[in-house]
């Protein structure tokens, strides 16, 4: 027998409005384990959206420290973090905890390439909030080869992209890459970070596009954990905020893609 209805009780349930979305499986959201790779601008927004959406188990990976130029688009970073040179992953974990006491965020201050493979296991979903092609390729492979869904986001100024890879079927992130990706694979397209070469131009970045891309990433995450593949992006979303355009495009599976030929 369900609990008796009390006057006003629906306004005390943190997730009442979420539960009104018929296909959203909130129990699955609460149980799911999500890895966020990259705790920069996208990582902040993704973590915030996940926490408010009810995700509790998050692993946040980033090797960088907070700097002043992050503060135009990173919700969880403060001037105090800049002064103390806080680790981004730890600052985001603290931020998640501050808006969702029931959450259990774990920070890894490390390059994702140094995170043991076993740390991927047990995650239901990986969200890529990265700033370079090489690391995207690495995370895409780790996730796809383990059968873990991968949602990748990218931004530059008012341009954004989200791609969803759902193993074992369908294209992965690398299927959509070409020679121009290979040429810039080792460049970091961020504004900050100890490994950024000084002569590499910093990319434009602002919060509105970051927010939109992060929102779409987490919206797809909600569909994935709710097992609503029929609602998922098929399979890439391109956004141009300057021209007010967005479009869903298909990235077909490439049988010659190293991820598929190595499996």
């Amino acid at each position, binding site marked *: 027998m369900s609990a008796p209805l009390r006057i006003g009780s629906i306004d005390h349930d943190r997730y009442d409005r979420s539960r009104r979305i018929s296909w959203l499986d909130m129990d699955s959201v609460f149980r799911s384990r999500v890895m966020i790779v990259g705790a920069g601008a996208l990582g902040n927004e993704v973590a915030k959206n996940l926490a408010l959406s009810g995700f509790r188990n998050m692993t946040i990976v980033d090797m960088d420290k907070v700097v002043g130029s992050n503060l135009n688009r990173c919700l969880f970073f403060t001037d105090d973090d800049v002064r103390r040179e806080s680790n981004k992953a730890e600052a985001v974990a603290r931020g998640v905890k501050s808006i969702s006491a029931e959450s259990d965020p774990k920070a890894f201050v490390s390059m994702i390439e140094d995170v043991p493979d076993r740390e991927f296991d047990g995650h239901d979903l990986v969200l890529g909030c990265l700033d370079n092609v090489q690391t995207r390729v690495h995370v895409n492979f780790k996730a796809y080869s383990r059968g873990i869904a991968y949602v990748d986001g990218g931004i530059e100024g008012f341009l954004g992209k989200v791609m969803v890879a759902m193993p074992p079927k369908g294209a992965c992130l690398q299927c959509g890459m070409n020679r121009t990706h290979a040429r810039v694979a080792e460049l970091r397209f961020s504004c900050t970070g100890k490994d950024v070469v000084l002569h590499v131009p910093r990319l434009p970045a602002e919060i509105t596009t970051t927010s939109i891309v992060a929102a779409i990433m987490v919206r797809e995450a909600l569909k994935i954990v709710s097992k609503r593949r029929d609602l998922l992006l098929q399979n890439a979303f391109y956004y141009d905020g300057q021209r007010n355009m967005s479009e869903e495009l298909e990235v*077909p599976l490439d049988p010659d893609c190293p991820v598929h030929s190595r499996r």
Partner: protein
Amino acid sequence: MKVKNAETGATVEMELEVENTIDEVIESAATFWSKDMGAYVLRKGKKVLRGGNTLKDAGVVANDVLELIPDPEGG
């Protein structure tokens, strides 16, 4: 065949052979428009074309208009 610059709406006519690859079209168009170093993709209709494919493999024909789109890699 024409390539359209998604960022500006400009188009350029390209003389190509069926054996030219999508990679070659992307790089030629990006160079023509003096694009910043970065990743780009080429779309035909609702599909992103595979870089290594020839125009013939990709089903690109004479009057097609392909669109060059930046593939943002920042985070």
